[in-house]
C-alpha cells in the first residue's frame, strides 16, 4: 500500500437545501448537520445559510441584512436608509465572539419599507416603480456607492447569514440554531477564481431570491453586462451573483415561470431543440434567442429559493453533482446523498436530477393556489 500525499486539496463546493412543504419551521440545527456533513467539499474560505420564515413579527417589512467594513460605511449607509426608507426596527445581527473568527465586519439588520410619502410624491410625478423595484435600487445603490457596505439580503421574512469560515464556524457565529425556518439552504465554499471574503460567501440574494452554487459561471462577463442594462450591478466579486439578479429579472420582472427561467439559464443544446416536436421547439428557440445573454455557461449545480419554493438546477451536461430526495412533506436537495441522509436517514425516494432539468419544490398552499389559478386561466 503506497502512501500518497497530494500537494493540494481535492475538493469542490458543497450545497444543501430543504423545503418543509406545509410551511412548518425546522430548527437551524438540522441544516447545520447536513452542510457540516460535507466539510470535505469546502476549505474554510466561505460558508453561509439562507432561512425563510424567520421574521414573522416583521413579515410585512423588507429585512435588510447589512455588512460594514468600517464605521464610516455604517454611518453613511444608515443616513441613506433613514432618508429613503421607513425603519420599523433595527438591531445588530446576533452573533457570538469566537476565537476562531478573528475579524468580521459589523453586522446589522433593518426592517424597512419604502417611505409612504416618498412613494406618493414619486407616484404623482410618474416615477414610482413599485416597492420591489424600489428596494432593488436601494440595494444596488448601497453596494455600488457606499464603499465598505454590502447588502447580504433584502427579502421579506427571510435572511442570509454568511462569512469566511467553515459552515460549523459560521453556524456558531450567527447562532443559526436560534432560527426556525420552513426553507433552508446552506453552502460550504472552496473558492477557485475569486477571493474568499465575507461578501463573496454564498448565498447570494436579491429581494427574497437566494442562491447557492457549486461550479463556475464562465459566462459571467456576458451575464453581467446584460444585467447592467436592467439596472443590476455586480459588486460582490463572485460569478454566482449574476444568477440571483437573473432570477429576479426573468421571473419577477419578465414573468417567466420558474421552469422557463431554468430553460433560459440552462437550455437544451441546439441539436436537441432541432429534434423536438412543435410547439416545444418553437418555445425553446424563442427562449434561447431572447435570453441568449442569460444563458449560464460552464459547470454548475445550483439551489435557488424564494418565499414559496426551492429549485435545484444543473448545467446542460451535468458537470457538478446534485441529488434530490422526498420524505413525506419535505423535499431535500444536496451535492451528496449522504448530506440528505444525515438529516433524513430513510427518504421515500432518492434520485439524481438530469442535466438542465429543474427540480421544483413548492409550498403545498402555493402549489394548490397556483394550480387553481392555472386552471382558471385555461377556462
Amino acid at each position, binding site marked *: *500500500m*503506497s502512501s500518497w500525499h497530494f500537494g493540494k486539496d481535492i475538493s469542490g463546493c458543497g450545497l444543501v437545501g430543504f423545503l418543509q412543504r406545509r410551511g412548518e419551521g425546522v430548527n437551524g440545527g438540522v441544516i447545520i448537520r447536513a452542510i457540516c*456533513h*460535507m466539510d*470535505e467539499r469546502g476549505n474554510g474560505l466561505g460558508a453561509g445559510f439562507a432561512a425563510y420564515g424567520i421574521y414573522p413579527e416583521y413579515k410585512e417589512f423588507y429585512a435588510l441584512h447589512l455588512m460594514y467594513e468600517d464605521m464610516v460605511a455604517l454611518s453613511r449607509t444608515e443616513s441613506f436608509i433613514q432618508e429613503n426608507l421607513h425603519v420599523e426596527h433595527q438591531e445588530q445581527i446576533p452573533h457570538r465572539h469566537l476565537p476562531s473568527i478573528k475579524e468580521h465586519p459589523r453586522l446589522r439588520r433593518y426592517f424597512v419599507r419604502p417611505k409612504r410619502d416618498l412613494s406618493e410624491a414619486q407616484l404623482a410625478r410618474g416615477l414610482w416603480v413599485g416597492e420591489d423595484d424600489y428596494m432593488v435600487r436601494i440595494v444596488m445603490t448601497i453596494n455600488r456607492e457606499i464603499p465598505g457596505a454590502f447588502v447580504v439580503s433584502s427579502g421579506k421574512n427571510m435572511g442570509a447569514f454568511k462569512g469566511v469560515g467553515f459552515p460549523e464556524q459560521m453556524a456558531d457565529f450567527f447562532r443559526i440554531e436560534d432560527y426556525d425556518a420552513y426553507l433552508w439552504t446552506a453552502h460550504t465554499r472552496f473558492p477557485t477564481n475569486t477571493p474568499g471574503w465575507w461578501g463573496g460567501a454564498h448565498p447570494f440574494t436579491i429581494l427574497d431570491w437566494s442562491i447557492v452554487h457549486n461550479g463556475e459561471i464562465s459566462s459571467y462577463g456576458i451575464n453581467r453586462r446584460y444585467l447592467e442594462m436592467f439596472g443590476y450591478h455586480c459588486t460582490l466579486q463572485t460569478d454566482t451573483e449574476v444568477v440571483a439578479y437573473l432570477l429576479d429579472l426573468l421571473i419577477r420582472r419578465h414573468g417567466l415561470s420558474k421552469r422557463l427561467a431554468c430553460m433560459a439559464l440552462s437550455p437544451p443544446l441546439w*441539436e*436537441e431543440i432541432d*429534434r423536438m416536436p412543435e410547439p416545444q421547439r418553437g418555445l425553446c428557440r424563442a427562449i434561447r434567442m431572447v435570453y441568449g445573454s442569460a444563458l449560464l455557461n460552464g459547470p454548475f449545480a445550483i439551489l435557488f429559493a424564494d418565499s414559496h419554493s426551492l429549485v435545484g438546477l444543473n448545467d446542460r*451536461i*451535468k458537470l457538478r*453533482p446534485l*441529488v434530490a430526495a422526498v420524505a413525506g412533506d419535505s423535499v431535500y436537495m444536496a451535492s*451528496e*446523498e*449522504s*448530506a440528505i*441522509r*444525515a438529516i433524513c436517514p430513510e427518504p421515500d*425516494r*432518492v*434520485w*439524481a436530477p*438530469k*442535466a438542465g432539468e429543474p427540480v421544483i419544490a413548492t409550498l403545498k398552499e402555493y402549489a394548490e393556489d397556483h394550480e387553481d389559478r392555472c386552471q382558471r386561466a385555461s377556462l
Partner: protein
Amino acid sequence: MRIDANGLHYRELNKRIREAARKGTSRFELVGVNGQRYIADGLEGEVEIHIHGTPGQDLGAFMKGPRVWVYGNAQDGVGNTMDAGKIVVHGMAGDVVGYGMRGGRIHILGDVGYRVGIHMKSYQDKLPVIVIGGKAGDFLGEYMAGGCIVLLGMYGTDPPERPLAGHYLGTGMHGGIIYLRGEIEPYRLGKGLAFEPLDENDRSFLELIIKEFAEDFGKDASEILEEPFTKVKPATHRPYGSMYAY
C-alpha cells in the same frame, strides 16, 4: 471485523481498515456508513468488504483485488482507476463510475449518472467490465479504449419514458465494447460508432457476465437474456488517425 462507521471520519475509518487488512483481516462489515470517502482505495489482496449505508466519493479507487458489496446507493467516482477486484452496488450509483478503469468488475443494480465508464482500457488479460442494471446518463463509455460495458435498463427507478442511455454514448470510443439490452436512437451514439448484431463469441461472453450479475442480485439470468442485445463498437481502432493530416 465489524466497524460502526457512524460519525467516524473517513481518515479514521480507512486507517482502521488498512491496518487490520495488513495484519491479515480478510472480512470487513461496515455499518452506519454515510458519505465516508475513499473506502478500499488502493487496497490490495483477498479482502471482502460489506458496506451498509451510503459510501462516499471514490469508493474502491485504485483498488487491486478486494471485493466490495454496498447495501445501499453509492455516490460519485465508484471504482475510479480500479485495477482488479469487484464492486457490487445494491442500489444506484452517481457520476463517473469506473473512470479510467483497467481491470475488475463493477455491478450496479440500479441507475447510474453521467460519464460512466469513460476512459476504460484493457491490456492483455486485464479486461474491466461494468454492468448497469438500470439506465445511464450522457457520455456513457466516452473515450473508451477497452473493456466492456453492459447496459440493461431493467432494475432502476428512472421512469419508463426515459431513454436507456443519454446522449453522446461512446463519443471518442476507439476500443472495447458496449452491449445494450434493447435499442437506442442512432443520434444518441457518438460519431464513428456503429451498431452491430451479436455473434457467437459475443453471446457466450455476455452470458457469462449476465450470469454473474444475476447471481449477485438474485435475478433470473434467462429473463435478462431473453431480450435481444445490440453491440456498439468503434468502426476503426484509430477513428482520429487522420484528424490532423490533410
